[in-house]
């Protein structure tokens, strides 16, 4: 049975789209047929980060309005044959999404895919609600700062009350905490919230920590998700997250300050 995973946060700019791209790519690299959907209608970004913006002909809203078939709109990823992107529309607003339309698209995708990753827009308005409504699991992307944690808390509350699973009264959406842009050094000095602070407040299981890294920016700009550059710490962090999601036990990395020797500091790890 196909699983629907929403990547959400409440707050903007914390790394939802980056996480969606890397997580979906990671699932595909592990051999699962994966579709990643951009719910940020009007401000689409996922296609840029996935490097397929030039190939966008039809989009999510076209499919919802029966102007195109799902097959026409899905864009096959260049790197992974198992990965498909359903881009958002740039010319519509978020009201173009509605429950019946989104449900039809997701049900159709479920027949053909193992995992459907929904990239939520920021905020708690319609686009975000639609992205989370059909979710079976949720990745809550959080930065180590108080406003992001607060917004994640809010989103968790909404997820527990307003998702389809909540409305039907069946098993709740499985929640995973994913901390991005983490700097162990700054957490140590108290500039940032630490992993344990965030876990204590949000009170949901941690699936992984992605360190703050320049590799992300480079990857975004080149349109190739960072997870493809396996020598970078970000790629390793996302690979670990995908493995944990798939049930493998992987020790937590990138949460403690690297204290490597002089040579390592001189030549650097990654």
């Amino acid at each position, binding site marked *: 049975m196909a699983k629907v995973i929403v990547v959400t946060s409440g707050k903007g700019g914390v790394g939802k789209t980056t996480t969606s791209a890397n997580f979906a790519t990671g699932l595909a690299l592990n051999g699962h047929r994966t579709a990643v959907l951009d719910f940020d209608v009007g401000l689409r970004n996922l296609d840029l980060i996935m490097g397929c913006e030039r190939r966008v002909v039809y989009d999510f809203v076209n499919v919802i309005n029966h102007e195109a078939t799902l097959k026409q709109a899905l864009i096959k990823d260049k790197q992974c044959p198992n990965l498909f992107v359903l881009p958002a529309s740039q010319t519509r607003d978020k009201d173009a999404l509605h429950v019946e339309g989104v449900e039809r698209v997701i049900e159709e995708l479920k027949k053909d895919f193992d995992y459907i990753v929904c990239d939520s827009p920021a905020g708690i308005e319609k686009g975000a609600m639609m992205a989370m409504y059909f979710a079976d699991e949720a990745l809550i992307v959080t930065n180590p700062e108080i406003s992001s944690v*607060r*917004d994640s*808390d*809010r989103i*968790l*509350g*909404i997820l*527990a*009350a307003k998702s389809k699973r909540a409305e039907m009264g069946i098993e709740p959406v499985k929640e995973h905490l994913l901390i991005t842009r983490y700097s162990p050094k700054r957490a140590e000095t108290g500039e940032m919230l630490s992993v344990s602070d965030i876990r*204590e*407040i949000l*009170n949901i299981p941690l699936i992984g920590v992605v360190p703050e890294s320049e590799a992300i920016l480079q990857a975004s700009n080149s349109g190739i998700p960072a997870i493809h550059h396996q020598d970078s710490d970000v790629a390793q962090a996302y690979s670990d997250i995908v493995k944990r999601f798939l049930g493998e036990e992987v020790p937590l990395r990138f949460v403690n300050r690297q204290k490597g020797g002089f040579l390592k500091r001189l030549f650097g790890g990654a």
Partner: protein
Amino acid sequence: MSITKTTAASPAAFEIKGSSFTLLVLCLKSSQLPELEKQLQAHLAKTPDYFNFDPIVIDLCNINQNDVKLDFKLLINLLKQHKLAPIGICNGNQNQVLAAQQHGLGIFADIAGLTKPKEQNKRSIHSPSKKESQDTSEPATPGSKENFRPQTKVITQPIRTGQQIYAQDCDLIVLAPVNAGAEIISDGNIHVYAPLRGRALAGVKGNTSARIFCLKMEAELVSIAGCYRVIEEKLPENIQGEGVQISLDGERLVFEPLLSNSTDNKRTVNWQK
């Protein structure tokens, strides 16, 4: 210029504040006032002082069809005769709203199904003070005691930013964290067997003996029977982040460690206005 000066010099003559009250609701099932009068009289015959000019809201949800005529003047007089002070209506139709306003009644926001009666109860009154008087005198209506059966609301999931939980007419027990920005409200006591980081309001209908208990005190605001304290700065060491119980002593909120063995150990934080 001189006007502003005088107003600045003289003390403010008034202040407008927001507040919340518990009100009785009279749910009318018929617009036939003589019949209402008959039943009210029969009902209150044994306890003529049952009401003491209690403010009451008239719920028109059962009689807000367009063709129903209601004489507000008569209705208001009738209620006043029975020591009730009608202050407003809810769930009325457009004409009823206009008529009520003309007779000096306020219009409350329509509340769906608040007093949709299931039983044959004439009155839908949920008020702790009335409950006590009912226990001592004769029960007003058979079966009405059912409505007051004390229950405890138990919450096992974290209460998160933006969420609000209200335990009406009962205690509230929370077994998961109450996060900053969340609000828990109870007519009775509040127990939080986890960190309390949000707002906790106990005894909101005026129960001054209500208490708040929590295992880790990090609340933003606590209130008992309307007496509240905003906690902006850290509380004393033995209170902040510790197991604490909060009670009301007169107009003071008293914070005590839960695990204090002796009274010497009992250092309290007083609430100052």
